């Protein structure tokens, strides 16, 4: 049995039937990490020994007849911007290279409650700023489909680890596309939930009004299951939404008959790679064949979303990252003779260039004299973007777009051109601006065999609709049966 090629729901079936135990599962992943991590470089920190210990404990408990969560003994990988008590949380930054949080993030507590076992912390762009994971202080993660290309970002470690079968599933975070775009580049499923569905407590903040934690998985059913675990109101996060708990797995009906799908034409215009466009058009045909009602429409405000996003995200980041000042924790320069130098040198030496760029941008747009022209204007546009999406969802159940205008690009080709890097987010940022849920699923590969992602956008708290639409396509298209990175051909 090839354990690491199985999805989580397949693993759970086998656990349930006692065909396999947690030690075997965990061991298979530890072996796989030992074998392939050197090529993929997805982890900042692995916790394999601890994972094996916990797997044994869980198996013992089961043997002693204790009733455990159905997820007990399933491993996971966690993006390195979610706080884990006792295991360092670096945000892939020199600033937090040796930082150990005194508490667990709410999502980590939820994983622990289900006795899900962490295999370690996954690489990312520093403080989640980037679209290629090249801005990690520690290492450049490789895309398992072609080790010379990037896995996307900022949750590149999470997407690459799932694609390379180093973890069965992972948590990512998405501020402007950081779950969906790497999922698209790595041929896996990535879901950004509605803003407020998952608690942000313990997620090291990049842009507070945009950040959201979500699953990166091998298939849609796994994404629905992981969302079941992490969703829900948290009294420690007042922006989290109070609503009755849903079972997202129940939403997977494999039926899109009568589903109204809107195609915003702006997302298929200039800048979209023709091969990407062609695959998306095939997917649209598939939906039509399955009985969905597809219609093209205009969402022209979306063209302003990227500019709006970079103003709001950078403004919030400039404030959120102020706490990394070398005073209480994190990196402190050795080179200072007064307080100003302590601040300046600690931050100059501790942050990488992209983080500094965004702090400077954000500081600028909030400065007196510029606030009205930038931040305030961006907030006004944000309101318009929300309104335009509201109007779209009066007509459509879900919207369909590419996740990214291109497939994964080669390492080093964009990292010195910030503007071009920012364009990688063009299809994804408007959802964060509007607080909407979105899922990226693979819908094919290009002529070089690199995966192409399709994004399905839902109305607020209508994750069920996009999950069902994604699931129905997945069942029809069977991407996982057709394509696999060479790294996973065994």
């Amino acid at each position, binding site marked *: 049995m090839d354990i690491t090629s199985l999805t989580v729901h397949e693993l759970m079936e086998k656990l349930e039937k006692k065909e396999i135990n947690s030690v075997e599962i965990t061991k298979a992943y530890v072996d796989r990490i030992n074998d392939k991590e050197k090529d993929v470089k997805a982890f900042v920190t692995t916790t394999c020994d601890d994972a094996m210990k916990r797997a044994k404990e869980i198996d013992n408990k089961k043997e002693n007849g204790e009733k455990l969560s159905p997820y007990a003994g399933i491993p996971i990988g966690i993006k390195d911007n979610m706080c884990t008590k006792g295991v360092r949380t670096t945000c892939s930054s020199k600033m937090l290279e040796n930082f150990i*949080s005194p508490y667990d993030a709410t999502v980590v507590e939820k994983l622990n409650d289900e006795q899900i076992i962490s295999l370690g912390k996954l690489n990312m762009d520093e403080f989640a700023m980037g679209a290629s994971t090249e801005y990690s202080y520690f290492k450049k993660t490789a895309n398992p489909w072609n080790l010379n290309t990037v896995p996307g970002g900022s949750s590149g470690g999470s997407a690459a680890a799932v694609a390379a079968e180093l973890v069965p599933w992972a948590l990512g975070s998405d501020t402007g596309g950081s779950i969906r775009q790497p999922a698209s580049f790595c041929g896996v499923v990535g879901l950004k939930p509605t803003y407020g569905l998952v608690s942000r*407590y313990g997620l090291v903040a990049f842009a*507070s009004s945009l950040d959201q934690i979500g699953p990166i998985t091998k298939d849609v059913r796994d994404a629905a299951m992981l969302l079941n675990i992490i969703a829900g109101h948290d009294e420690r996060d*007042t*922006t989290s939404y109070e609503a009755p708990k849903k079972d997202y797995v129940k939403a997977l009906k494999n039926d899109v008959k009568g589903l109204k799908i809107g195609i915003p034409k702006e997302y298929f215009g200039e800048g979209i790679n023709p091969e990407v466009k062609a695959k998306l058009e095939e997917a649209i045909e598939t939906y039509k064949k399955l009985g969905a009602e597809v219609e093209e429409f205009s969402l022209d405000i979306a063209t302003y979303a990227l500019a709006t996003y970079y103003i709001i995200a950078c403004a919030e980041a400039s*404030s959120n990252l*102020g706490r990394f000042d070398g005073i*209480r924790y994190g990196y402190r320069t050795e080179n200072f003779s007064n307080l100003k130098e302590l601040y300046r040198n600690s931050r100059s030496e501790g942050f990488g260039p992209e983080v500094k760029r965004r702090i400077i941008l954000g500081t600028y747009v909030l400065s007196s004299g510029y606030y009205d022209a930038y931040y305030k204007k961006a907030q006004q546009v944000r309101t318009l973007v929300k309104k335009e999406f509201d109007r779209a969802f009066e007509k459509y159940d879900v919207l369909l777009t590419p996740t990214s205008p291109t497939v994964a690009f080669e390492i080093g080709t964009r990292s010195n051109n910030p503007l071009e890097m920012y364009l990688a987010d063009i299809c994804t940022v408007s959802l964060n601006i509007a607080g909407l849920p979105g899922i990226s699923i693979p819908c094919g590969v290009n002529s070089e065999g690199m995966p192409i992602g399709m994004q399905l956008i839902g109305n607020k708290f209508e994750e069920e609709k996009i999950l069902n639409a994604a699931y129905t396509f997945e069942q029809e298209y069977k991407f996982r049966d057709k394509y696999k990175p060479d790294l996973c051909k065994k």
Partner: protein
Amino acid sequence: MSRDNYELVMGLEVHSELSTKTKIFCSCPTEFGGDPNTHTCPICMAMPGTLPVLNEKVVEYAVKAGLATNCEISRNSKNDRKNYFYPDLPKSYQISQFDKPLCEHGYIEIEDDEGNPKKVRITRIHIEEDAGKLNHSDFGGESLVDLNRAGVPLIEIVSEPDLRSSGEVDRYLKKLKSILEYIEVSDCKMQEGSFRADVNVSVRKKGASEYGTRTEMKNMNSFRAITRAIEYEADRQVDVLEDGGKIEQETLRWDDVSGKTFSMRDKEDAQDYRYFPEPDLVAIRLSQEYIDNIKANLPEMPESRRERYITDFNLTEKEARLLTASKYLSNIFEGAEKICGNAKAVANWLLSDISRILNEKEMEPSDIPFTAEHLAKLVELIEKGTISSAIGKKVVTELFENPKDPEEIIKEKGWIQISDEGAIKEVVEKIIAANPQSVADYKAGKDKAIGFLVGQAMKETKGKANPQMLNKMFIEELK
């Protein structure tokens, strides 16, 4: 004196710590003191990933303060971030309120220097968090950060530039303090820094319609310091203007030891706080019922108590006003009156000896160490003739040092009044023999001489003799 040609114009920014049990964004205690960094948690230490949760009590207390100062309460309010770097500010931003404060457009009434009623307008009251403290000494030139105070809730009360003298400022602050104490939202302890005032001072030629350039003074931690600082700064500004100079808009630090103000930062460092809405908190929305309910349950305010004291206890307007100026004084008054039933005597003690000692010791009524029961007992002991008023004064002094039952104090100290006729007679005879001139004066018709003789007898007995008996006996003996 050139000051006479100028008018002082002042507005105040008062920060008052709210007396909620827990901090504004986490559940750490707000208690003053404690070993450094023991009243802290990941949230108030700004550990990565933590989020604030607004303490509802803070909103309630601020609304109370707004209602008690005649403000309009905003039903739609929000928090904003004020960004700046300082080691006592762990998040590098203070969560405050910028353009939508909880309370706006209020006023409180004070007396001007002529004793006429005057309204001082309140621009706004908003909620925010306090910063921690830096300990600079004792660590070989290093500074250590104590975050116990970080996240203690504050209200900032901003007045319009309506104040025209240091006397008005003093009365405004005392009135404000008294209101906050009455509604029980703040302890207002200046020494502990839970009630702090920044004063914006400018001067202008009398009759001028435009305001002069203002300076902002910080770091005054007593009413006396505030008065001194204002007088100093007004003189300084007038001198500058009279010499043909210009006032620089700047922030000044008052130094109480030298009695001078010093510039805190130069203009190059002018702060840009980059305020923006706090994305980690949802907007504050209050229902009209919520506000009405707080209004209906506001405690009795000083004005109402004052009226009651005049009608129920026959106190003078002045006595009633002085007693109600402080909730603590007023509460001791009411407590003691209830026990001993002698309002006039209780008021006298509070307004004469006790107030004098408070003044001397630079204490506030909230620092009075003894209870209403103690004071009532003192009044009763004098009424019964167990001690004289003169001994009463000594008991009060003792109560400040060593607060306990006055009966015990006088027993321990041997201060019980001499009411024994034989003993009194002995003293009277001794004093008559020693003061022939006064005796002669009295016999020549100078009735006042009796007072002198009684005084001498009290001195002789160290105040323990019953003064009424002495008086009577001198008159008899000298017939």
